[in-house]
């Protein structure tokens, strides 16, 4: 799904680069903007859902959530439809795009279905609000297993569970317990635990000490954005959402940037790196490496960069440069 705003142009950019790389991907474009189904319930259009159920893998551009009352969050709808329980964000420092932090190479794996985002809130009496954080054994086990499997499949050395079980004794305590249990089945991966505040403290001083991090929803939301900030922001950070039944949707997590939409100024890096993540997920490591290298080389070279990366080239020029490099690698 191309998405809104700059979505279409960056999606086109990605498809062009994939074509240049001769990646064996056939694109099926579907609109995922929510529609009201029979019975008045908001849902993803049937064609989109059918396509995903068949192919299992999706790539998504940024979506805008209309402010209209009653309209659900698009991301929430997608998440519920496909049971996207794991949000995965690899954060790697990009050579050529300088930030105060170098050598960052970590992955945040965030439980994406429950926790603090259960959406269960109520006003108890006037002036007293209760928000419920839900932690279940099932979801905690599922995300812990995914994290360890991801670590194993991607040759990562350690998994750190991030929690606040000193304060949230029962809820985070349960999450932590399940992580410890799953760790027993993955003796080849080092398992550590760290308080959320300690992770924050250490992350901004020395991010190189972290490898794979697994955590409940809210901490994951905050930490994954914190880590994205370390490497340069949402414009260069890839993201993947893993669902039940083998479904996986990869997406750029930046906004729709309506102010530059349609002007050939957008930076397709985030969507491209998400597409690279997608290739790796499908086992197409060679293609993934080729495209990723072409992208990083272009950025490192600094000759053709979009405005947000510090240059003044057009999106199409940036895309063209990456295509050229990919073809030269044949």
């Amino acid at each position: 799904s191309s998405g809104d705003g700059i979505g279409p142009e960056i999606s086109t950019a990605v498809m062009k680069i994939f074509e240049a790389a001769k990646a064996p991907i056939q694109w099926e474009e579907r609109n995922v903007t929510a529609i009201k189904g029979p019975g008045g319930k908001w849902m993803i259009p049937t064609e989109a859902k059918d396509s995903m159920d068949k192919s299992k893998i999706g790539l998504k551009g940024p979506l805008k959530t209309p402010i209209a009352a009653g309209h659900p969050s698009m991301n929430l709808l997608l998440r519920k439809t496909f049971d996207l329980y794991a949000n995965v964000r690899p954060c790697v420092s990009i050579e050529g795009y300088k930030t105060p932090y170098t050598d960052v190479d970590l992955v945040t794996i965030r439980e994406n279905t429950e926790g603090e985002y259960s959406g269960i809130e109520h006003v108890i009496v006037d002036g007293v609000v209760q928000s419920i954080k839900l932690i279940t054994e099932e979801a905690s086990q599922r995300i812990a297993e995914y994290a360890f499997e991801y670590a194993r499949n991607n040759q990562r050395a350690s998994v750190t569970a991030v929690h606040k079980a000193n304060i949230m004794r029962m809820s985070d305590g349960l999450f932590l317990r399940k992580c410890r249990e799953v760790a027993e089945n993955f003796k080849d991966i080092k398992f550590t635990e760290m308080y959320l505040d300690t992770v924050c403290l250490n992350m901004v001083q020395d991010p190189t000490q972290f490898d794979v991090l697994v955590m409940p929803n809210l901490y994951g939301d905050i930490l994954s954005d914190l880590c994205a900030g370390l490497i340069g922001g949402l414009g260069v950070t890839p993201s993947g959402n893993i669902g039940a039944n083998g479904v996986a949707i990869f997406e750029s997590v930046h906004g729709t940037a309506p102010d530059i939409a349609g002007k050939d100024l957008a930076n397709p890096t985030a969507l491209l790196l998400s597409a690279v993540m997608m290739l790796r997920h499908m086992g197409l490591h060679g293609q993934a490496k080729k495209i990723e290298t072409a992208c990083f080389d272009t950025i490192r070279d600094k000759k053709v960069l979009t405005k947000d990366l510090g240059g003044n080239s057009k999106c199409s020029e940036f895309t063209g440069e990456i295509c050229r490099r990919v073809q030269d690698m044949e």
Partner: protein
Amino acid sequence: YPPLTTIPPPAKYGGRHTVTLIPGDGIGPELLTHVRELFRFCCVPVDFEIVSIDSKSTSDDDMNNAITAIRRNGVALKGNIETNHNLPPSHISRNNILRTSLDLYANVIHCQTLPGVRTRHRDVDIIIIRENTEGEYSSLEHENVPGVVECLKIITRKKSLRIAEYAFNAARQNGRRRVTAVHKANIMKLGDGLFLQCCKEVAAGYPEITFDSMIVDNTTMQLVSKPQQFDVMVMPNLYGSVISNVCAGLVGGPGLVPGANYGKDYAVFETATRNTGKSIANKNIANPTATLLASCLMLDHLRLHGYASMIRKAILATVSETRLHTADLGGQGTTSEVVQSVMREIESKGPRTSEQI
């Protein structure tokens, strides 16, 4: 920082103050011993009433003694008390109990870039005001059915207004221009929505101060790229933990930043990031700066401003001496070397006259 009108004058007898001292675990005991050593050296008119809390015990007696002592003296200096994970969930964090029992509703942390400390970002000067008694730290949890746990986050109008009032008042008193509320009201519409609403209401009473708000995940991204944009920040409990640790990390780490917990009637001082530092305990390598600066905050609270600035000046002079930096700052200095240096620095300024104090 505390509004001077709401805290009663500190208790004094015979010209001397009594302050409750809770050593805590890890590096707490050794660092607080250094504070006592330094105070003796400077002839600070403070006597410490030491109350220990055994983190391994499940009995409430230690806690009750400590709370009574703090109620009696009005002021405390403490190390962090470890929370034993092997005890059942009903065993609540001792640090949390202290804060809620004494209603220390404002956790105030001032993160500033210090001269002589190498950090990735310069010119950071942020005051963080964190609601300290409710929110996610309400300790209200239950297991509905086996394997399904609910944890309640409570946000009240009363406490949100109170902390917002504190933040804007502190900003005004310290000549700060901008207060930013940190929240996640796009997801927690009712809870954080209420918090944000209360901040807006209080802001209306402080027209000279700019008020804005920012979502917590974006805030952390902004902090690691451009921390200089922030002035005063106010937020509920959990985000406060995240933001204060990020900011402390930005200006040099847990060994440097002191923290204060203020309530209407009591004040408790400790390090900003509240670490026990178990792995570096009793090795003479911990950085005493945060604890020593916390004791200066305490002296200011007791209106012993002369002693406070004398000691603070000496600490800052020592911190800028790279060769004395402890391991957390990338050096090889020991705790005692730092403390000795502070004392030498004070001594070199000559004997104090009563006018100076």
